[in-house]
């Protein structure tokens, strides 16, 4: 049967690939939401609004890409909200308290994030903690560090050049969107084209079989946690730059939104499944939804209700399509 494939035209293959791609259904959901909003809301149509939405969900998306790695490998990371906050605080402190230039300050924040990721990884592979517990622990620890470092006060007075990261534009498009796009492309290639990426999927699919295939499962795990925290830190730094301050409370509860985006995007908490595209789409759905609530003047008390239902309906639609495909 494999011969048949050769006979098909490239077009057919591409069409098939797109239609069968696990992200296609969720893309449809997003499209539908956008069309509906386009029809009912005039302000939704402005380019500015679209860019604002994209910039707002870019932090979920950027972090979400990192979480995807962890989730595909079969783990979970709850600490990322705190790491997000901590990295923002540390970067700002780099400029304000340690007098570092902008770039080294950013690196400092990223390094702090990576370090936490490494710590998560080590707890999971060496202390053999369930990822849920390990990262719940570091969630608390990183948050505490935010308070301890800042004594609870936001870090203000950053170098104005730092603001470019979150507030700047390149070719008319906000910098955070560029960053999200670049991160997405890099990690999509990483997951799909590289040996390590393939191993991450294998690990999530069957840890035992992956280990017996002569693959260092531990290294991969540590890598996924480190990358996840690194990206969360990056998003945190961008957000700090967007707001112009390092807030010790930034990113509280952020982990749930980022994880939700990943799962709406088709990843499974059992591991082995998930794509970067899906994650970006998942984050976009959440972004459009939150924007819609404001544009449509939905009463605050009702907003969560609508968010809850949309999440459920979006993923149900995705599931139904999937199971019909089977």
């Amino acid at each position, binding site marked *: 049967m494999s011969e048949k494939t050769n006979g098909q035209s490239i077009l057919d293959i591409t069409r098939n690939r797109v239609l069968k791609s696990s992200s296609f259904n969720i893309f449809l959901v997003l499209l539908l939401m956008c069309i509906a909003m386009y029809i009912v809301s005039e302000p939704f149509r402005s380019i500015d609004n679209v860019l604002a939405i994209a910039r707002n969900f870019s932090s979920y998306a950027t972090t979400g890409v990192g979480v995807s790695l962890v989730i595909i490998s079969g783990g979970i990371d709850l600490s990322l909200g705190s790491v997000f906050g901590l990295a923002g605080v540390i970067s700002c402190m780099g400029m304000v308290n340690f007098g570092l230039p902008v770039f080294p300050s950013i690196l400092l924040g990223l390094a702090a994030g990576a370090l936490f990721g490494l710590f998560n990884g080590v707890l999971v592979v060496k202390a053999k903690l369930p990822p849920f517990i390990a990262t719940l622990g570091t969630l608390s620890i990183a948050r505490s560090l935010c308070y301890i470092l800042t004594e609870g006060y936001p870090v203000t007075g950053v170098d104005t050049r730092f603001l470019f990261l979150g507030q700047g534009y390149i070719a008319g498009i906000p910098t955070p969107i560029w960053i999200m796009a670049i991160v997405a492309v890099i990690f999509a290639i990483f997951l799909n084209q590289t040996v390590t990426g393939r191993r991450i999927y294998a690990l999530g699919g069957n840890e035992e079989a992956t280990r017996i295939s002569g693959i260092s499962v531990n290294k991969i795990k540590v890598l996924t946690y480190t990358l996840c925290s690194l990206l969360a830190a990056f998003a945190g730094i961008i957000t700090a730059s967007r707001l112009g*301050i390092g807030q010790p*409370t930034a990113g509280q509860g952020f982990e749930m939104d980022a994880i939700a985006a990943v799962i709406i995007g088709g990843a499974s908490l059992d591991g082995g499944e998930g794509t970067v595209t899906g994650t970006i789409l998942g984050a976009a759905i959440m972004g459009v939804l939150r924007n819609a609530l*404001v544009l449509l003047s939905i009463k605050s008390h009702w907003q969560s209700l609508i968010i809850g239902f949309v999440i459920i309906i979006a993923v149900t639609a995705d599931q139904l399509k999937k199971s019909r495909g089977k």
Partner: protein
Amino acid sequence: SGPGTEKPGPAEPTPTPATEPQPEEPSGEDKDITIAVIPQQLGNVVFLPAKEGAEDAGKELGINVEWQAPVRADATLQVEIIEGLIERKVDGIAISCAHPDALKDTLARAVEAGIAVSTFDADSPESGRIFYCGTENYEAGVLCGEHMVELFKDHDKDVIRVAQLEGIPGAFDITARMQGFADAIKGTNIEVVYTGPCDDDVDKAVIVVEDYTRANGDEIDAWFMAGGWPYVVGPDALPELRKWREADPENRKVVTMDVFPSSKAHFDLNLIDVAVGQSFYNMGKLSVENLYKHITGQPVDGEEKEGFPGLFISTGAQIVTPENYQTEIADE
């Protein structure tokens, strides 16, 4: 105009009312005007009176008042909401800022877009907003501190030990109150010996206060609640605190921020010495009224202050004591 800013409050936004609603309807009924009011968080009870005040003002003026509350106390969520409001070109925004600097730029963009912006409760002075309406949290903290000093002025103990209750550590408004308190008691024999966080959760607040009082009640002379979480519940839910106080009302004092209808029951039992309320109802009401005035081209009530950009509308602080609580707190 307020010194220190390039964009003086009243001057800039005038073109907007001139081009849009004003020509058709000079004043009074104007269904087309929408003012969005943004508290820091949906679940925080202190903002409920502000909502009432804003909505009452809206009804009186015949304009739309929209309550847009973020689900979590998070500056980024407020930013997202403002961005949506800018796209919708609402006429006015009144906001209690999660952090002054974090919202500065976004509010400035709203101002640029011709939206009349004001702040209440928690200010963002450099945002170009027209006015700030409320009582500074720092000032309120200072008031609490001053009352604490007053309460203990005749006591001859060497050190007065105070336990302090806070919300989410690092939350800007609460931190400001605690700072005000700390500054007010500086140089006296009053000393903060403990700060317990309750994550803005009433249940946790009760647990922290009760546990600490049970364990260390003999060691402390006073409680300072930087937010009124424990007084959302009835006195029965705070038996330890009550026991502690009733054991020696002369030497054990309680100063708290916030006044709720439910605070009355605690005053009835003489469990609170001073409660400092920031009139959130007035904050909501005055914010909307004055934004409306500004939008329709009328002058805004409010004073100018030295070094303070824009106008200041004081809602004052409500000082509730066992002497005046009967009149100060409306029945539930």
